[in-house]
């Protein structure tokens, strides 16, 4: 009888494992060296594409590529040149120069929690982290290289040939390059700021009164910040015209992709995590401080025809404004910007 029960439970267990492996739940990956993402308290699991399961070796290869200057035509810049860990994987200048000092037209966005992003680029023109890899590599004012030439370059490097064969069972190719880089980028996770400790980890003592007041203002129906900067990601990934500018002729934003006039000046709502580190702000990096941001919103924006109707202005005392900025600073995750797993070796 006892033996029969044991067999019964083994059967259930085996069925359980096999059934779970079918689900899209990324926690259960049947590969022997499966990597389990360290997902912070309060966060849902990100979607991991079926064709790019995470493994430790793949993530390590992706990290090597992320900091690899050979991705650029003249081997002068890497992904990490614009996406610096100390600035939460963004940069501290308005427009970061690409090869030969060439300037594009957009501020380098933070990669904080990019695994949860639903579409890539500020205008949503590219669908996945994997397919996005082509953009910096082939853009004239970024790396100005070419995927075919990059594959040739990596195939001439014995270390990369070994690493790709180890991870993918094949020599460096576009599939492996895009999958490895995306796998590493999915580990760029920030969820241990003082806000997180207070809000998701129950450590009520980590925020002071001013910061708590700032948090209440942030989530208040008067300021409406959290209408778009919502949830644990501090964004709803919608495209909004936030009325910072009157003229979007230099960069029409979402309209560049949709060609619709109602999308002119709309950009994807960015996360506010690590916002104190990711300035200068906005798509063009023309706004220098959190103070200026609050001023623009409290003044009700430029009144551009596509401006979000949520932006109608509000009044804050000097103390409240200071508190709001103090709260935004609690979203800085110091463990994240010093995490050696994410930094250049």
């Amino acid at each position, binding site marked *: 009888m006892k033996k029969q029960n044991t067999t019964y439970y083994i059967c259930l267990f085996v069925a359980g494992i096999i059934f779970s492996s079918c689900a*899209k739940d990324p926690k259960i990956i049947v590969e022997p060296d499966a990597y389990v993402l360290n997902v912070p308290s309060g966060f849902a699991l990100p979607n991991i594409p079926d064709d790019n399961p995470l493994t430790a070796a793949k993530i390590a290869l992706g990290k090597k590529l992320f900091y690899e200057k050979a991705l650029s035509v003249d081997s002068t810049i890497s992904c990490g040149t614009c996406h610096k860990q100390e600035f939460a994987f963004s940069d501290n200048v308005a427009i970061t120069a690409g090869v030969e000092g060439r300037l594009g037209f957009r501020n380098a966005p933070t990669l904080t929690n990019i695994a949860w992003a639903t579409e890539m680029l500020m205008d949503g023109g590219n669908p996945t982290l994997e397919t996005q890899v082509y953009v910096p590599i082939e853009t004239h004012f970024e790396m100005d290289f070419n995927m075919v030439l990059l594959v040739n370059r990596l195939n001439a490097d014995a270390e990369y040939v070994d690493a790709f064969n180890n991870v993918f069972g094949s020599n460096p190719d576009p599939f492996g390059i895009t999958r490895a880089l995306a796998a590493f980028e999915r580990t760029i996770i920030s969820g241990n700021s003082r806000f997180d400790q207070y809000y998701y980890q129950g450590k009520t003592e980590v925020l002071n009164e001013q910061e708590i007041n700032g948090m209440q203002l942030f989530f208040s129906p008067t300021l409406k910040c959290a209408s778009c900067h919502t949830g644990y990601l501090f964004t709803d990934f919608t495209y909004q015209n936030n009325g910072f500018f009157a003229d979007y002729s230099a960069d029409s934003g979402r309209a*560049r992709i949709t060609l619709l006039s109602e999308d002119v000046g709309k950009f994807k709502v960015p996360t506010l995590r690590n916002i104190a580190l990711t300035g200068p702000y906005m798509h063009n990096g023309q706004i220098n401080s959190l103070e200026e941001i609050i001023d623009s919103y409290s003044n009700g924006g430029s009144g551009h025809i596509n401006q979000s109707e949520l932006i109608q202005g509000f009044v804050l005392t000097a103390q409240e404004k200071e508190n709001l900025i103090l709260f935004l600073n609690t979203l800085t995750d110091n463990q994240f910007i010093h995490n050696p797993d994410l930094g250049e070796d």
Partner: protein
Amino acid sequence: MKKSVFLLTLTTISAVMFLSSCAKKEGCMDQAALNFDPEAEVDMGCEYATDDDVAVTLHMHQNIGGGELVEESMYTINGVATNLNLVQFYVSAITLVDAAGNEITNDDVYLLVTPEEEAYSIGNFPAGDYTQIKFDIGIDSVTNHADPSKYDIGNPLGAQFPSMHWGWSFGYIFLRIDGEADADGNGVPDTDGQFEMHLGSDAYLATIEIDFPITIAEGNENIVHLDADWDTFFTGVDMANDNTTHVTDNAALSSLLYENIFNMFSAEE
């Protein structure tokens, strides 16, 4: 004991059934097959051309200024000295139509056409008499937004050098011309006059229909000869001053070039 064997069997059967029904997409995994599916992860068989069908070749003769177009050469286009350094475009959805209006399409043939290469295999078609050839300049909207890294380098839809794909709007460049025009009027193309005419995005897919008799027969060479006339393509373009477009940055020029595409192809006389 008997019961536990039964349980074990039941579990195994249900698990195997469940496994085979889940997650991984089934389809043909051979890039050489007619029904290759780049998304497929489980090979469920491929279709290849049957023996009744006959291999057909397309010859694309590219002409400009009364002669053959050769890349990295200088031409006078609309009165402006112009170097054409790169000229290439996609041809897909190649269809033969018979007198009764029946259409045979080789959906899985995508050609990246360059002046260097005249002859392209366009797959197998049933032997017979046809009255029209139809094809797209560009890539259908489904394939246009598929992941190019799922194709090998060397496949027309895989990564190319120079690139035939836009990352920023995620789709193929249907037609790409790079060159230099004489911007300062001294009769010589200048590096300052560099231009790019890159057409893409779903709205710019052009379906071309050319009526002429085509006979496909076993034992014949079965070559379909077409002309691409680049003078027609450049009709109405101010080559010195308004010569660059990537669609969204110069919709007027893109629209003009797109309209010209419909008139530039013909059956070789």
